[in-house]
């Protein structure tokens, strides 16, 4: 590409014409041709009894890697395969729409001291060999596996965890306030002690009931695992400040913490050692827009026969626009993908599945329940009072014809309910989420009349107590990959007009939506909501900060300790008290009891009016890829999405590379 030759203009024109013709011809002939040769070489499969991938065996033979026994910990984590033990090799092809989203790592290469068990309802030790917590949820003790190593071969010890906590999680440049997943209810970060190379003791001042869950959460767990030996050189507490600053500015960064964050980014910096199943060898933010991941030769998990996982050698992630991604999925070009696929394109996938050699599985869709959250902390005191009245919210809910909406938008497959924990959750309350669901205009009218909104103006719109018409703006981000929101909200608008409540449906850009919400400047928030595991991300259910979906004004009051925002009503304060009780519970029974109390309060008060929930989330899986869960696990951020299927034990029945 860089060579330069001198050609006359005429020759260039001739060549141009020829090249164009060649392009056209190649283009057409290429489409009918066979698949392109594989650049990864043919090291597939190999000896079925081998304990390590042929890819690594070659490197051991060449003297580039120590033998397998020296790379595995004394006591590796044994993963039970979903169907059967597998064979080595192959490349899992995936795609995503955003070059910076590192969700693939959380799904395919997640790592932590603990991890979710297969059912994703409890923790199991991971990098830690054993884990204990004190009876009051204050002291957490981990013993690491012996002989763990980073992907570059350096030992992983308790010093790495200590470095992460002291130099990163407790550093005020990175965290001006404590992260919510690493501080107790008193906003205090814990003390960490490392009595020996393998033991880590984390002690909170007050009980922190959610810490164990957070340690399983793949988006949190990896933040405790940083390579001290690599990152030390970028940290001024350890390395000379002048050296660190100079390196940062040489790399084009304004300050050392920018450079540190960049070097620490396991998705964009291939040099950073990792502990997960795969390591990035070429980044998606590079010129090709495609990330390549390769197996970590020091990965600490094996199958029951002692073969080192993962079975698959490579993962490739292409960054594509949504349309191109959908077509690729429908073409069988993606080997295992659920995240980024829309429910609405399921039909296209199913139509092409058989002829293009893939299968469409149905997992549970989480955060797919479309809801309307009235702003309980509205800036306007009159509207605030009206929306705080449960009769008004119940009336609004009764006035929605969910059956018609379901038939029209989801072919009758959708589920009508309010957003509350489901049977799968500890926080489930009997019959929760079913109140005020039936379409009953007369009841809605009666409730509104009773709530003091009986008067109407000439247009038939009800009047607020101060005489203004009851008109609201419904704010939402247009995104039709789930329930077609615009259509659904339009139906709500017509339904509510019948009972004299007038709304304007206002789709906005995601940025503006976030801004308006944070500044407490909206009437109704049309949002999709998670139902389970809300304790890990309470913004939808408890106003804990100004990013709350139900009451940002109260949230600000809560997070600022009462100095800013709007003072909540006693009812909302009760919700906040229960939340505090949940966070500081000394045992699981107390935590679950508080959680159920929160759910009950939501159930009785419909703070969020549920519309419809998607029946499932489509997952496309190459026919040749085995050990992918075919029951219906949840495709949830809290379980690392596809990670719930433990990707390290997936294998190709006939690996091609």
């Amino acid at each position, binding site marked *: 590409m860089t060579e330069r030759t001198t050609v006359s203009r005429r020759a260039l024109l001739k060549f141009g014409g020829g*090249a164009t013709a060649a*392009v056209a011809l190649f283009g057409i002939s290429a489409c009918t041709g066979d698949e392109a040769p*594989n650049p990864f070489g043919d090291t597939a499969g190999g000896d079925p009894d081998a304990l390590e991938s042929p890819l690594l065996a070659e490197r051991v033979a060449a003297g580039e890697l120590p033998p397998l026994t020296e790379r595995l910990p004394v006591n590796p984590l044994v993963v039970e395969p979903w169907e059967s033990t597998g064979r080595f090799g192959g490349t899992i092809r995936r795609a995503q729409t955003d070059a910076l989203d590192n969700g693939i790592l959380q799904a395919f290469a997640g790592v932590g001291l603990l991890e979710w068990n297969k059912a994703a309802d409890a923790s199991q030790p991971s990098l830690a060999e054993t884990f204990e917590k004190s009876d009051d949820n204050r002291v957490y003790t981990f013993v690491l596996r012996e002989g763990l190593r980073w992907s570059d071969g350096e030992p992983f010890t308790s010093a790495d965890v200590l470095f992460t906590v002291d130099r990163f999680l407790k550093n005020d440049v990175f965290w001006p306030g404590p992260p919510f997943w690493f501080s107790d209810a008193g906003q205090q970060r814990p003390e960490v002690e490392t009595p020996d190379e393998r033991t880590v003791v984390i002690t909170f001042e007050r009980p922190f009931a959610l810490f164990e869950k957070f340690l399983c959460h793949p988006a949190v767990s990896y933040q405790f695992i940083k390579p001290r030996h690599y990152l030390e050189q970028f940290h001024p507490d350890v390395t000379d400040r002048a050296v660190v600053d100079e390196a940062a500015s040489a790399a084009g960064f304004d300050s050392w913490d920018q450079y540190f964050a960049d070097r620490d980014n396991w998705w964009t910096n291939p040099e950073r050692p990792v502990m997960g199943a795969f390591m990035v060898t070429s980044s998606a*933010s590079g010129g090709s827009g495609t990330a390549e991941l390769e197996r970590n030769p020091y990965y600490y998990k094996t199958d029951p026969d002692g073969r080192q996982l993962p079975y698959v050698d490579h993962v490739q992630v292409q960054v594509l626009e949504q349309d191109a991604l959908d077509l690729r999925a429908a073409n069988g070009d993606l080997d295992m993908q659920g995240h980024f696929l829309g429910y609405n394109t399921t039909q296209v996938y199913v139509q092409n599945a058989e002829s*293009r050699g893939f299968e469409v599985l149905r997992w549970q869709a989480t955060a797919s329940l479309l809801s309307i959250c009235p702003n309980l902390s509205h800036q306007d005191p009159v509207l605030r009072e009206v929306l705080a009245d449960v009769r008004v919210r119940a009336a609004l809910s009764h006035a929605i014809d969910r059956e018609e909406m379901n038939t029209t938008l989801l072919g009758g497959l959708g589920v009508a309910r309010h957003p509350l924990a489901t049977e799968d959750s500890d926080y489930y309350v009997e019959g929760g989420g079913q109140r005020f669901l039936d379409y009953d205009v007369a009841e809605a009218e009666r409730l509104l009349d009773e709530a003091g909104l009986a008067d109407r103006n000439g247009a038939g719109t009800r009047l607020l107590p101060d005489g203004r018409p009851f008109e609201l703006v419904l704010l939402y981000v247009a995104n039709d990959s789930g329930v077609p929101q615009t259509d659904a909200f339009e139906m709500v608008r017509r339904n509510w007009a019948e009972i004299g409540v007038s709304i304007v449906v206002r789709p906005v850009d995601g940025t503006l939506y976030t801004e308006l919400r944070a500044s407490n400047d909206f009437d109704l928030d049309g949002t999709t909501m998670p139902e389970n595991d809300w304790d890990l991300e309470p913004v939808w259910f408890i106003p804990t900060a100004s990013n709350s979906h139900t009451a940002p004004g109260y949230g600000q009051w809560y997070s600022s300790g009462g100095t800013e925002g709007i003072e909540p009503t006693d009812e909302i304060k009760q919700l906040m008290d229960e939340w505090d009780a949940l966070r500081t519970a000394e045992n699981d029974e107390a935590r679950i009891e508080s959680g159920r109390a929160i759910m009950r309060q939501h159930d009785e008060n419909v703070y969020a009016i549920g519309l419809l929930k998607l029946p499932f989330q489509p997952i496309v899986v190459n026919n040749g890829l085995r050990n992918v869960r075919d029951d219906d696990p949840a495709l949830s951020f809290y379980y690392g999405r596809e990670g719930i299927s433990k990707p390290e034990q997936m294998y190709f029945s006939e690996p091609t590379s």
Partner: protein
Amino acid sequence: MLRFIIMRVLHVIPTLVAISVIAFFIIQLPPGDFLTTQIASLEAQGQSLDPAQLDALRARYGIGDPFWVQYWKWISNILLHGDFGLSFQFQRPVSALIAERLPLTLALGVATLLFTWAIALPAGVYSAMKQHSFGDYTISGIGFIALAVPNFLAALVLAYLGFELFGQSVGGLFSPEMVNAPWSMAKFVDLLEHLWIPVLVIGLAGTAGVIRVTRANMLDELNKPYVTTARAKGLSEGRLVTKYPLRIAMNPFISTAGWHLPSLFDGEIIVAQVLALSTIGPLLLTALRSQDMYLAGGIILIIAVLTVIGTLLSDILLAAVDPRVRFGKA
């Protein structure tokens, strides 16, 4: 002539300053900043950003600074150090991001330009010589249809046809196997296999204009006395046309050559976006959408500079060809 060039170059400087301020200002107009966009996209995925972390990021990125401080930091680094700053979202120098995508962007731009000319010039000449014939109407008809169909739609249709008829991987300039492979003959062939769709889509749209201009210019020339004379003297029709009328008809293309500079650089944003090409256009679009202002500002600045330089070149070229231009107010 020298005076003309100097005056023209002097005019360029205030234009560039104004463009850079306006570009940077417009990028900052939408509500929120890069971090709000990040929060929005995190929320869309079912998670929220810790308020503490948010404050740290604001400080790290210097997002709280007032407009003029940010602008001055940006422009002075470019002028004094050639440093376009750091992209918020990629956490990499803007210049490196652009440089990585430049070769393929230029390849696409040049291939498209050649394709357009290779199709349009002969078609225009033919159209003029056989005016009001069946061929003329056919060419004009196809040209107008190509012009009228929106580019992104044509791209989607072709991508869908590629998928439906040939089972081709949609999107990108390379097959998945080849995308990170080192350059080789196989990779080059793979590039050609994917390049034809965008070249066809972008090229066809530009063809109609070139056909019409060529046709009109040729028609002007073909009836002039010198053509009649040459024909009377028995010059063969092919030689006759290429020798003089075609040369003159080419003039508009030569004098507007400079304008192709920016279009070579941005690589047709919308088509590239639809087809997920790793060119500069989609980079600009993502930067604008996520309010990554140094990246967006850098690309817009370069496009603006190229436009100004292209215009300058065209003007100088025109002045060289046509002396009347030089004596006007430059």
